Every structure is written in C-alpha cells, then in structure tokens.
C-alpha cells in the first residue's frame, strides 16, 4: 500500500512536505495505524511521532488519518485506508514540532482555564466526600476523556480562536466538574464561561463527537453548560 506522511524537521527543512512510501503489510494483516508507523520507522528512522501505551489509554498518538482525527494505536487500517492509500498528517490547528508531533501548549492552556480539579470550601470530612450512586453516574461519559486533543483539533471554532474558545475537550471537562456533587464552585465556574467566546463559539457542528476515540459527546456537555448558564441568569 501507499502511505503519504507529513514530514517536517525545522532544523533541516525549509517547509513541510508529504513523503510517499510504498510498504507491504506482513501477512496482509489488518494492523493498527501505529503498527504501520513502526514499520515506516524501520524504513526511515528519522520519522517522529508520539506513542506510549499503544492501547488507547494515554492519548499520545492522536493524528489525522485520511482526513479524520483519531488515535493511531486503536485505528485499524481497514477503518481508514481508501484505495490502498493512507495519508497521515499531524492534528490540525496546532503548531508542528516535528513530523506528526504537535505542540499542545494552547490545548493545555484552555484546559487549565476551566480549573480541572475539585473545589470544595466546606471542611473536609474525616474519611472522604461521599457520593450516591446516582450522583456518581452523572460523571459517566465525562471522566473518561484522555485529553488526546482529537476533538478540539477537529473543531473549526478552535482553529479560528484557539486563544479564546475553550474547545470541546476543555468544555467536556468543565462540565465534568460542574456536574460533580462534591464541587461547590459552580457559580464561579459558570461566571468564568459567560462570555461570547469560551462556550458560545461552539456552533454545534459535532465534529468533536464524530472523532472522539472514546465515544464521548462534548456537544451534549456544552449544551448542558448552556442550560446551567441560562438557569443561573434567569
């Protein structure tokens, strides 16, 4: 098959370019894209990409495969290859450090803004803050986010305003803490989000939902934040 990989080494290249590599998959197996990258690296050791757990848990190997963001380690070739060709690019909208390795600083800055930790101003109990099973269930579909940035970098609103729009991943996490029965900073959290950019730049096109490798729904979480803002203000 033919693999076209985005290559850029700022120390030696003036501009990024696409490198076409023909490769035979051993035994014609339906391997993961990450395994394919390993095969490519055996051919050309200068190829750079991030990976760690290789099982969709760490969120390191988010990249754009034939136009769709996803985790290379849990994306089989059969799911993305079209006409025996695969185009691999870095996540869109973030500065490229090298090849498919991107600088995630802007993504983390937005994540930091939503204060991704429990805030509780009541005295700590002796053992732990308890939740009922129903309260705990509110966090399902929110806590599973691994911050791979596939959703946020698939969002045009983030592409145009990466410094102002929190992005789907950050907003999913914002709702994760707004929905937590143990968190008492709901009012302060909502006040920080009530501007024309942070939440409201989302136009609900649901690119985030279609690419999330964990099957989460940031658009739904954003809708719930809007409802909370509306309830607080009316």
């Amino acid at each position, binding site marked *: 098959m033919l693999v076209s990989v985005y290559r850029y080494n700022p120390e030696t290249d003036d501009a990024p370019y696409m490198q076409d590599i023909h490769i035979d998959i051993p035994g014609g197996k339906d391997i993961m894209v990450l395994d394919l990258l390993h095969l490519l690296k055996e051919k050309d050791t200068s190829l750079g990409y991030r990976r760690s757990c290789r099982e969709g848990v760490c969120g390191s190997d988010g990249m754009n495969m034939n136009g769709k963001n996803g985790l290379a380690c849990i994306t089989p070739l059969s799911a993305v290859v079209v006409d025996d060709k695969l185009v691999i690019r870095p996540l869109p909208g973030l500065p490229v450090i090298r090849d498919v390795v991107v600088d995630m600083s802007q993504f983390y800055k937005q994540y930091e803004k939503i204060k991704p930790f429990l805030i509780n101003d009541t005295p700590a109990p002796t053992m732990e803050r308890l939740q009922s099973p129903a309260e705990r269930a509110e966090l399902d579909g929110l806590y599973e986010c691994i911050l791979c940035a596939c959703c946020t970098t698939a969002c045009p*609103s983030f592409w*145009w*305003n990466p410094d*102002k729009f929190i992005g789907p991943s950050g907003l999913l996490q914002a709702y994760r803490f707004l929905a937590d029965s143990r968190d008492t900073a709901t009012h302060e959290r909502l*006040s*920080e*989000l*009530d*501007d*024309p*950019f*942070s*939440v*409201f*730049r989302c136009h609900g096109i649901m690119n985030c939902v279609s690419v999330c490798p964990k099957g989460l729904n940031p658009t739904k979480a954003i809708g719930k934040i*809007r409802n909370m*803002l*509306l309830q607080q*203000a009316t």
Partner: protein
Amino acid sequence: MVTSITSFGRSGLYDWMVQRVTAVVLLAYTIFMIGYLLFNSDMDYMQWKSLFECTSMRIFTLLALLSMAAHAWIGLWSVTTDYIKPTGLRFVVQSGCGLLTFIYVVWGIQILWSV
C-alpha cells in the same frame, strides 16, 4: 473570561439568547408570509397595501425587522471575529455592518409607515 466590547450584549449567554429568540420571530414571520401568499395567490395591489396598513401587521413587521437587525449583527460579529484577525480591519468591517444594519432599519421603518 474573555472580554469583548464589540459584541451585541457583551455576554455570550445574552447574545445566544437574543439570537434564538429573534430566530423564532423570523421563523413566525416567514411562515405567516408564505402562508398568506399561498392562500391569496390572486392578490392585487390594494389587498397587499391594506395588509400593511393594519397596525398589527406593522407591529409584526417592525418586530421582524428589528429581530433581523439584531440577529444579523450577532451573526456577522461572529463571522468577523472568526475570519478577520487584524483588529483595525475587523473594526472597520464591523462598523460597516453596523452602519448598513442601521440604514436598513430606518429605511424599513420609513417604507412601512409610508404605505
């Protein structure tokens, strides 16, 4: 929090709500107009004139006109903040949009009350 002094209500929630409410008004006006034209396919000038001479129709039309102005401003403000990054140019384009919207509103009122 991101601050912005050029947005309609300076609050994301307020702009969002205004855009939703005005959308409902515009939908109601569009449905009414389409319905009226369908049920009066043989309409003449006098009937069209008498429709707009009615105070309730003037109120409804003015409401739709103001809704369109607010809706368009919020929408165009979003588009300009997305695509026009140089502040000076964006301010000029936004001012142009604002001026044009104001002209359309005044012109619309003038037309409406000249019937």
